């Protein structure tokens, strides 16, 4: 049997209604897909950004703020570690390498971060060389400074500058540009930490930093160091300790949004079924004619089922494309807001949702026509 020509004819008779149903399914599908994929991508990107930061040691205070400032360069006033903490850590046998990280100043909205040459140069150089003198700087991939440009950092962070505009006399020259790392550090200007020490209070603050990023030799060393530096006015933590609770919060929000999306989709499927029921009222007569002509029940049902399944399938397919397009936009937005490069794309969870929707919807699409198989034909012909 071949109900396709009849289905096409029916859809041609009501192009506006069909378009509306497809558009409705497409929009909700797109929303559900975007929420799901965007959250996954954000989570992956923030984990990626934290990868280089095995263990962070800071002055006692908020662990969350320590991670946000050190890893994601969110400006905040952090207490400084004592200078001997840096020396003491450097002497630890379990420390493979370490780098003080200080976010203190800004220039044209870019964070000026003081650290070591090897930590700064870790993403690799796209152009120029790494700084090897206290009046040199390298810039992240997205910091719009030219090589050779000399600049004077402004005291305080970008947000504070609106109120207090106090330029340092100290000049730094850009000598290199880093490869893109997909993290907020792409928007930073990296300078030798000694430069910050010179700019900020000279000897009193020398050797002091708000945070030290430690690369331990082994996992055992990592836990040992973490325990040891959690006492005596310092705090030591793995970024994941802060990120996981955040993720679970993010995950809860996502689960709620995702749940709403699914509930919405289910409602939609029922709306589509209602549409089919309503459409069937107008097709009772045609179904009566088909049955009078001797059409087998499977043919009669498939003319209705195929139309429903086509509309649902078309809606889901359009919604998927729309979702992919929307993801470009939302990813760009989230990237610009967080400094993380969030390349969201559809993955297994989204395709699972789409498949479940299509299977569920199309299984149900034929149901409303079943009663018409038992109604007396003569009655259907009169309707």
């Amino acid at each position, binding site marked *: 049997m*071949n109900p396709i020509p009849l289905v096409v*004819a029916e859809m041609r008779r009501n192009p506006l209604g069909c378009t509306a149903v497809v558009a409705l399914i497409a929009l909700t599908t797109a929303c559900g897909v975007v929420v799901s994929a965007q959250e996954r991508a954000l989570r992956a990107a923030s984990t990626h950004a934290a990868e280089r930061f095995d263990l962070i040691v800071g002055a006692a205070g908020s662990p969350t703020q320590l991670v946000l400032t050190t890893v994601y360069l969110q400006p905040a006033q952090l207490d400084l570690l004592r200078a001997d903490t840096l020396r003491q850590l450097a002497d630890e046998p379990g420390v493979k390498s370490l780098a003080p990280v200080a976010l203190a100043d800004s220039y044209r909205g870019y964070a000026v971060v003081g650290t070591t040459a090897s930590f700064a140069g870790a993403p690799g150089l796209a152009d120029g060389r790494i700084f090897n003198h206290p009046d040199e700087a390298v810039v992240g991939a997205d910091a719009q400074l030219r090589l050779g440009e000399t600049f004077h950092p402004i005291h305080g962070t970008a947000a504070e500058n609106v109120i207090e505009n106090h330029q340092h006399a100290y000049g730094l020259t850009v000598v290199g540009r880093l490869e893109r790392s997909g993290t907020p550090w792409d928007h930073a200007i990296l300078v030798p930490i000694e430069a910050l020490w010179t700019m900020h209070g000279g000897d009193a603050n020398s050797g002091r930093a708000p945070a030290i990023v430690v690369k331990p030799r082994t996992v055992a060393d990592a836990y040992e160091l973490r325990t040891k530096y959690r006492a005596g006015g310092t705090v030591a933590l793995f970024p994941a300790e802060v990120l996981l609770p955040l993720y679970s919060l993010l995950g809860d929000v996502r689960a709620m949004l995702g749940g709403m999306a699914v509930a919405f989709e289910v409602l939609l499927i029922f709306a589509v079924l209602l549409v089919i029921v309503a459409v069937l009222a107008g097709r009772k007569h045609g179904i009566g004619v088909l049955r009078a002509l001797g059409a087998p*029940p499977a043919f009669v049902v498939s003319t209705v089922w195929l139309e429903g399944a086509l509309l649902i399938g078309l809606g889901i397919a359009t919604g998927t494309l729309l979702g992919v397009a929307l993801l470009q936009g939302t990813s760009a937005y989230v990237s610009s807001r967080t400094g993380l490069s969030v390349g969201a794309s559809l993955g297994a969870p989204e395709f699972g949702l789409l498949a479940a929707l299509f299977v569920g919807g199309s299984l149900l699409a034929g149901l409303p026509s079943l009663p018409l198989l038992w109604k*007396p034909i*003569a009655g259907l012909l009169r309707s």
Partner: protein
Amino acid sequence: MLRDLHVEFADANRAPRIVLDIPALEIAGGGQLAICGPSGSGKTTLLNVLAGIEHPRRGMVRWGGVELGAIRPRAADRWRRETLGLVFQQFHLFPGLSALDNVLLPFRFDRFAIDSANRDRASDLLERVSVPATRRVERLSRGEMQRVAVARALVKAPAVVLADEPTASLDRDTGVVVADLLLRMCREQHATLVVVTHDATLADRFDRQFALATPRPWRTAANAPVMP
């Protein structure tokens, strides 16, 4: 072929109203019969009973060896699509489909693809009834629509063609054309043709007529023969 049509009694309604009370009616295979009577006399009900889409409370309809009341609904469906061609007063075509696709529709019940022989047959029939094959049926005139319906009824070369007031919703001249085609083409194909009509001029063109009496709504007598 078919013979031995018996309609002894037919009552499609729940109420004890007698719609039809026909002791016997036989038609030879290949014959042409007009059933006539005023509106309300149960013509359409009788045709539905003959087509097996309405079932009498009592009595028997037999076409050849097939007794309609005794077979399962699925078998009745198959019997209709293999043996029967139907023409309705209101055409009952499917808008959105071309004339050709409407005529080909009965083939689609069984097969996915339509072979060229059947397609040619449908095209030939449309040529016979002078309707452009590719035009959508909703853009045809009423006379053309009914001619498409005649082509659809004949496309599977059915043994029996049943027509319910085939000319009633057409103007006189158009009705004559449709009646001509129906009679001539059924004769050519040796199909038994039964038409119900209140149109005396149409009925006169048949070699046999069978008249239903005026309705007798509330008489409940079990056995009140109206036909000689």
